[in-house]
């Protein structure tokens, strides 16, 4: 691992909330006498991401990790809370010029490499889009040279620029997406389920490419994934999300070796492991509750083996220590983690 001389916080997320109105249309509500339905996708999330590190958000489907990602890059406005990147608040409309510059420094790579490239555009045009849009190169010749350089950088051939996206495999398409993300010289890249649409052999190539690129351009990653083995390979720090809330943030090593929160333990127990072959794994019990009507108190209590009366009533507050944050009554009281 690289030695980090200075630890500067690049991304500062504070008390982020995002509500979605999932109620039926107005007329149906009146006729069927239904209340408005509000889904709380993200609930009071605070994260700091240091420059040059890889922060991973993990959790089951529906835990709100993709929503966090979309808010961080500015595709979705937060309902409440603030996101500050490189010292600039994303919602600060008075700094339009700085925001536009900041836009070019934040990039996102999407889950589905088949939907994230316009099928009617040639690859060279796709990769050149950020360069043209942010006017990063002086003339057409420089753009062409830059596109060729980017294609080589991600392990493709410069002549591939003449092709259309459908002529590539999933892994190659993801490489094109990475080239496009790098085109605007970003500092911060959000990877939303980067490898979940790829097969395992290709996953490793893409992840190693990302690591190399991170070293070369000192990039900061926010890595969204449900695949813990991917996360273990990539992340410096990990945040575990459950039902829109962060239940545990810890260093990658600590989290895997010494998980504190009962939900993190459940997740880790469910990882398929070669050494465990033959033995029974503990699958995660139960399902994630309906976020429209979340459980009272700690949202994890219906599935938690350690839940007591307090967990059912009182929402736990984050407990901060020097390297980790845990949101659990049991850990706070010392009931959990001392077996």
């Amino acid at each position, binding site marked *: 691992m690289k030695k980090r001389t200075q630890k500067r916080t690049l991304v500062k997320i504070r008390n982020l909330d995002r509500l979605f109105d999932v109620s039926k249309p107005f007329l149906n509500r009146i006729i069927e006498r239904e209340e408005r339905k509000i889904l709380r996708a993200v609930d009071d999330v605070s994260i700091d991401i240091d420059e040059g590190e890889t922060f991973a958000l993990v959790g089951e489907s529906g835990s709100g990790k993709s929503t966090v990602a979309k808010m961080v890059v500015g595709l979705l406005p937060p309902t409440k809370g603030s996101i500050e990147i490189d010292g600039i608040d994303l919602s600060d409309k008075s700094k339009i010029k700085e925001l536009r510059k900041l836009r070019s420094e934040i990039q996102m790579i999407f889950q589905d490499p088949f939907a*994230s490239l316009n099928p009617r555009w040639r690859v060279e045009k796709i990769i050149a889009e*950020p360069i043209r849009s942010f006017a990063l190169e002086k003339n057409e010749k420089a753009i062409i040279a830059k596109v060729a350089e980017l294609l080589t950088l991600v392990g493709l051939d410069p002549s591939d620029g003449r092709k259309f996206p459908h002529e590539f495999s999933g892994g190659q398409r993801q490489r094109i997406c990475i080239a496009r993300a790098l085109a605007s010289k970003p500092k911060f890249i959000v990877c939303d389920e980067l490898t979940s649409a790829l097969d395992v052999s290709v996953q490793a190539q893409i992840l190693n490419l990302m690591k190399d690129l991170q070293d070369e351009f000192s990039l900061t990653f926010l890595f969204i994934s449900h695949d813990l083995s991917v996360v273990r390979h990539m992340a410096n720090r990990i945040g575990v999300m459950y039902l829109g809330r962060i239940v545990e943030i810890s260093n990658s090593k600590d989290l895997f070796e010494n998980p504190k929160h009962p939900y993190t333990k459940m997740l880790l127990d469910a990882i398929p492991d070669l050494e465990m072959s033959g033995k029974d794994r503990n699958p995660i019990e139960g399902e994630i509750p309906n976020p429209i009507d979340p459980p009272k108190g700690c949202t994890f209590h219906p599935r938690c083996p350690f839940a007591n009366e307090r967990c059912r009533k009182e929402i736990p507050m984050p407990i901060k220590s020097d390297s980790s944050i845990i949101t659990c009554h049991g850990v706070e009281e010392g009931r959990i983690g001392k077996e």
Partner: protein
Amino acid sequence: MFNKIHDNIFRALNSDFLYSFKHSPVAIVSFIVALTLVLGAVLAPFYAPHNPFDPATLNLMNGFSAPMKPNQFTGEVFLLGTDDQGRDVFSTILYGMRISLFVGFAAVTFAMVLGVSLGLIAGYVGGWLDALMMRIADVQLTFPGILVAMLIFGIAKGFTPIDQRDQMAIWVLIIAIGLSEWVQVARVVRGATLVEKNKEYVQAARLNGRRSGGILIGHILPNVLGSVLVIATISLALAIIAEATLSFLGVGAPPTKPSLGTLIRIGQGYLFSGEWWILLFPAVTLLALALSVNLLGDWLRDALNPKLK
């Protein structure tokens, strides 16, 4: 540059599209019929026996000549006979088809421009604007298209001065037919836009600082054009029929510049007095034109729909 053209030609020749065309006899026959008719109409001034729009070339003595038989007064022979004013039916069909096709193409272009832009905006912006536009479209859909066209035609006619009515009639027709057909286009484009705008490449473009206009034109429009092409072809057949219907009812192209519909209207007056050719030949031409374009549209819809392959 040469490479690019070469690439495109190569891609076109190898496409599924062409394969599907080669393996569909209906499409090939319709294409040949439609092409013959369109070329025949476009090139009419070069080979038509005479210009039926020019009264100086007409001889009333030639009236009611039967096809391929010498006229009883002048002895002239006409391929498809003549009508009441001595106009050669073959020439009037060619020139009439020019008007029918021009009105058809222009009306469809107008409907496309209107429908595609409104559909794109409704789908992309969403919210109350979308709701408003789609409710207007719904209301218009409850009336038959021909009725809407007649209404618009009537209103527009009221606004044009009497001495310009004949010249304006064709433009009014185009606007009337275009306005009655934009709804289908707008709905299809809106639906396709709703699908495309949530795809990740659009989100990526937004992240890359593209503005809504650029995204709509650069990203979404090219991806919804496939479905537009299909409706455009089918609408062309509908527009030609709508024009013929309006002209048949006497509210379309004027008798001095007859379209196929006007010719059929003129001809139906003589059907039972034995001069069947005045009606039959324009009617068959209209049928062939509308049917071939429609069948082409049907084939196009299937060929562009990957689920049917």
